């Protein structure tokens, strides 16, 4: 158990689609589980990273203060940090709000939106504050590898992780590299 490679994963401003795609490796996850143990991840529900994680997989961009804290925790805890999917790499769909002032977004959703009752912009101190723009994760911390795709296919995860675990420099063949 202790010799296993520790993998942590999280979804920041993402849709969990990359995690779903990761799980599409299907029964190969059994093979993976022989050499890998999952640390902090939606799969395990562990809340914080152990200090000695080997690989951190980050889905989604950075849209609020909590995302920044999470991303920094992953960088601190993981030897290798990987940007997974379009949103982590360039902000993706959530970054489409970058062209609309934040106040307008909030007004549209919570004040003027259709069917809104008791209109108010949520301001509970427990809620993470939104950043004025959604940013890709390489603008916040150093990223070691990038897996493009919306989502990257299960084969991308498989090829990348098996390369890395075998001690090879990960490389994706042409058919596995796509931005959509």
């Amino acid at each position, binding site marked *: 158990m202790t010799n296993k490679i520790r993998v942590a994963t999280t979804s920041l401003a993402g849709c969990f689609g990359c995690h779903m795609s990761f799980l599409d490796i299907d029964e190969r996850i059994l093979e993976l589980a022989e050499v890998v143990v999952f640390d902090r991840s939606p799969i395990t529900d562990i809340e914080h990273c152990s200090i000695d994680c080997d690989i951190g997989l980050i889905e989604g961009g950075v849209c609020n203060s909590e995302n920044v804290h999470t991303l920094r925790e992953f960088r601190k805890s993981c030897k290798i940090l990987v940007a997974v999917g379009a949103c982590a790499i360039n902000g993706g*769909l959530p970054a489409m709000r970058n062209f609309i002032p934040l106040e307008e977004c909030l007004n549209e959703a919570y004040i003027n939106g259709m069917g809104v009752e008791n209109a108010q912009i949520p301001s509970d101190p427990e809620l993470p504050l939104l950043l004025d723009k959604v940013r890709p994760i390489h603008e916040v911390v150093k990223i070691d590898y990038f897996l493009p795709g*919306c989502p990257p296919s299960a084969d991308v995860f498989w090829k990348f992780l098996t390369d890395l675990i075998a001690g090879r420099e990960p490389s994706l063949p042409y058919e596995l590299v796509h931005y959509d």
Partner: protein
Amino acid sequence: MAKTITIDGLSIPFEDGQTIMQAASDAGVYIPHLCHHPEFTPHGSCKLCTVKVNGRNCSACTFPAMEGQEVINNAKDLNADRQKITQMLFVEGNHFCPSCEKTGNCQLQAVAYHLNMLDDHFPLFYQHRELDASHTDILIDHNRCIFCTLCVRASHEHDGKEVFAISGRGINKHLIVNSESGLLKDTNMTASDKAAHICPTGAILIKHTAYQVPIGERIYDHQQIDQVSLNSEQVDHDK
């Protein structure tokens, strides 16, 4: 005896008046490019086709082939520069491939794939740019314009119209259309114009044609742009 240059050590014949790009393409050698198109006057703006000619960097699409030139094209450092240039094109515009109907058929994306570009490297600009959906058949999405001027040249040289131009300089550079309102609907452009079909990205699109080709059957799904480009452009060069 035909005059020759060498590209990466290969002897390539050329005719007087040909550019390095034309000679290379005729001989089946791919030099990455976006603003070059064999049918139109070269523009030399995207700089992807930068090659080393006798040790100096030149744009292959504008530089005339001359007897005895030693050209380096497919080299690690040149491809690294090309990847950086492509990354700059991506961060300067708003290229969200998953929501773009050109994806899979896009030359900008295909060049990036060819150069094994996996990230954007630079901070993203997220510049606000407009859409022009005024025309009944043609959509302009300025978010995806890379200022290659192919639409400008196609409209002028092929269609005999002057629908497009580039206005402004540097970071304020933008594509404009030739109508008082500034809208495409008030120009004489039609969907059958060459200019409507020449865009290497998803900036100029024909409406009502999106997503008709399924994933797996799109131009660059299984074939890299070097092969696609040579197959299609050699025909043009031979005309």
